[in-house]
């Protein structure tokens, strides 16, 4: 199954920092929480993730689009240019990856649950237990859990405490929303474990000239900086400290990025030529700087 190029025009987190602060301020004052959360919300909405919870939350948002068959949700908007596309996403079953395509950025992560379209019916399957079907109600519940987790770090709690959080969310759902009465807290617990268990297999291709520019006293581009931070590069991790960059000698296309993942049988792997410092890169950075200067 290939499920490609679904356009999304809505931000990932739609609640305002104030709404989130009211809900999750716990140890902070609401005003402090509002400021702190505002940075997190902005980062996530720009598709810069820094914790596993955030990545999982993002996957769940995509699953929700999938289950609701809303891949073409904004087709009419596009015509009227009322709202621009924020990103596109695709599911690749072949090697269980999600591909996300946004301006100047391509990202790929592991597809935790298996999306299935069977005779027009859509659902998700657990990898731990293929008999465990996951529907939209489960996803709505999990979104609630991981939203809270982003701001309150549920992953740091003991399994017992995590289960209490699940029960609390279940209470809230049964009290305020009708039709959630059959939420199975055990199942939710299993699915949360599963989501946290798998490695996210994160890889991000960025086009970023800004960080490649450093200038010497004469106003010339410092070449070392260009090779330290190649403008076309891959980040190997969503966290800062373990991440490192692998540079390309030129801008690559989305197709070339996808090829990295060797979808096709016998597809060639990318080979890195060691000790190679392409001059073109420095030229590109210079050109970018001049163009920026003209503006």
């Amino acid at each position: 199954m290939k499920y490609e190029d679904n356009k999304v025009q809505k931000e990932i987190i739609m609640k305002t920092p104030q709404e989130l602060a009211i809900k999750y301020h716990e140890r902070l004052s609401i005003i402090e929480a509002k400021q702190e959360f505002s940075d997190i919300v902005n980062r996530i909405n720009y598709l810069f993730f820094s914790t596993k919870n955030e990545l999982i939350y993002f996957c769940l948002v995509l699953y929700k689009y999938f289950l609701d068959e809303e891949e073409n949700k904004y087709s009419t908007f596009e015509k009227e240019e009322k709202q621009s596309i924020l990103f596109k996403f695709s599911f690749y079953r072949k090697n269980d990856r999600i591909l996300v395509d946004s301006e100047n950025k391509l990202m790929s992560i592991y597809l935790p649950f298996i999306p299935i379209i069977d005779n027009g019916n859509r659902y998700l399957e657990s990898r731990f237990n293929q008999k465990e079907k996951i529907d939209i109600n489960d996803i709505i519940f999990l979104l609630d859990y991981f939203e809270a987790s982003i701001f309150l770090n549920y992953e740091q709690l003991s399994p017992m405490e995590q289960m209490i959080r699940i029960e609390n969310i279940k209470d809230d759902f049964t009290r305020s929303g009708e039709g959630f009465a059959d939420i199975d807290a055990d199942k939710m617990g299993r699915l949360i474990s599963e989501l946290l268990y798998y490695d996210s297999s994160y890889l991000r291709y960025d086009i970023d000239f800004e960080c490649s520019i450093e200038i010497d006293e004469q106003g010339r581009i410092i070449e070392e900086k260009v090779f330290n931070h190649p403008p076309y590069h891959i980040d190997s991790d969503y966290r800062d400290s373990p991440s490192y960059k692998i540079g390309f000698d030129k801008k690559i296309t989305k197709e070339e990025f996808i090829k990295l993942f060797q979808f096709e049988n016998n597809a060639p792997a990318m080979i890195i030529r060691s000790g190679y410092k392409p001059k073109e890169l420095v030229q590109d950075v210079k050109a970018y700087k001049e163009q920026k200067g003209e503006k």
Partner: protein
Amino acid sequence: MHKNIFIDVPEKVEESQVFKDILSNLEEEGLGDDGETIYILQRPMLVAQEKKYYEYGVTLIVQNKKIIFIDCSPYESDNQFEYYCEDFIDDINALVTEKYPQYFKVLGRKREWSNFFVKGSKESHEILSKVESRKVKILTSVIIGSIQQFVDFDESTLENEEISVLEAVKNKIMLFDTNQTKFVYKEDVDKPIISLQGLAGSGKTELLLHKIRKIFVDETTARIGVTCFNRVLAESLTSRIIDFFNIMKVSEQITAKRLFIAHSWGSRNDPNSGLYSKICSAYGIEFQRYSNNRKNSEVWQDAINYLKTQDFEPIFDYLFIDESQDFEPEYIKLCSMVSKKVYVAGDILQNIFSENSMFSYEDTDYVLNRVYRTDPRTILFSHIIGFGLIEKPVVRWLKDNEWEMAGYEVSQPDKAGMVTLKRENIKRFEGSDELSKVSSIKIFNEEITSDSIARAIDDIQEKNPDVKASDIAIVFTYYNQRHTRPIAKELGRKLLSDYSWDYVLVPEEKRIGHDNEVTITNINNVKGLEFPFVIVVANQELNTISKTDLKEDIEREIRKRNALYMALTRSFISSYLIMSNNNVPATYLDKLIEATEEISEKPIIRVKKPEPDDIIDEKLLYGLNSQLIKTQEDLILEILNEFNVTDSDKRDILEIISRKKEIKNGTMERKVVKSIIEQAIDFLN
């Protein structure tokens, strides 16, 4: 005295001849009869008491006229009166420029508005233009302390002679009326529990915000608690308090120690998550979780019983309970034990269903029966449904004083036993009086589909070309993930494709709609909110009531009517009700449509005054509230529990039975549901 006059002057002024003349003149001219309050006061409400004013100086404010300074002194007063006028304007200027700079944005410098004040005695002055009147209204709001936030205020409309209805709604300036001003600034009741009762849309919550701010600022050590029923309400109230304090330039940070805001329950592991959990943690009471199997009132009673055995100090000085009709009397009792003073604010008509004596007519301290949000015809219609006024038996027939408390004028029955129920037509916002040409309430007798809802939207768009997505809320009376969500989603897709409007599905997203979003929501999430237009989708089966029905069935039917009342009164301009013969008896639906026709021009209806035998036994109404609607899902689960079904089987059974027509139509008949479940269980085995 005239009910629409707010007076706050020293006794010696009240005794003066000049003052008496002012009053009789106002009476003669019939001013204030349009429902707009007249204010006669000596000092602006928000000016510190230390500042003294000339003792005979009085300011008279009548809307659409200039503000008049009057000298009530029986003697020649040197320059005292001149100083009074100057002081008054200077103090207003300080409020406008320093304290509430949002006013400076709309009013500008003193010289641009000081000419709206004149010195005079009793002579009436010219009627102002619409533009001028708006400015006088804004000045009035500063004087009487009804501070506006002007958040989405469009200043450009201020200068336009003609504005659209929607512009008028969005830029309206709310002035406290007599009762409201008294509650906030001149509280004249000294009791441990103060009850403020208002109809939906009478500005209760806004008033609570002003009161909370006043206590927070004036009593710097007071510990204040605020609670409302559920998380959604508590969160939206918190948000409103934060914004309000921000606008009102409250400099002290809101901390849980000084101002604790939470919903009524909470969770065991976080004492700050709810008022009950806070109380449990403060006094070492064992926390009990919400459960379908135990009545809430029993949980509260356990806490009360525990406290009675203890020697304890209150943890709050003031506790505010909003939407008090949602609470059991035991909860309010518990609150009154843990706080020195309790303010309960609720909906009069829903409280009439309460057996708690503090909600009785006699014990209500402040009544707000003037509805500034909703069209009086919509309110009347909502009461027709909520009280079952055109049904037999009638759900509720009020006593004379209760009708009055609810803002009604009731005629004596004629020979045929018919009475006329009439609401006052008050001016709610600029141009609201002209709306009487258009119906404020419309029923669409159609099958409930995304198409029928779209037709209501078309109707709104046709009459209001400047309508925006965020002006509309669609409220399902029953929201179920399996049956309602697909319709809501289909509607959402239609909104996107046909209207280029996005939407928010509140029951699952749990947030307020953004600018380009239509709000799609349910009863539990719409409380406390208001929109220019509301489309209520009655997708829950509504049955006629018979006095021989089981108590449980009667209660359920009444709750459904209550929920409709609450949802319909969320609108500023008009409400739509989509109902279908599929789940509402045709004769009843026809009667409702007839009623909308009868009230289409004026908020007046003739109904038969029921004989005592034709009214539902009051005892049945006790303890009823709109929140605890037993849903079909609850009923299904109850039956499944009787069968001892495992959690994983539950899902399959729910899946199977959700395809049944009866279930889709929202049947609540136990027999029917039980037999459908039995079939499903057989099928699975």
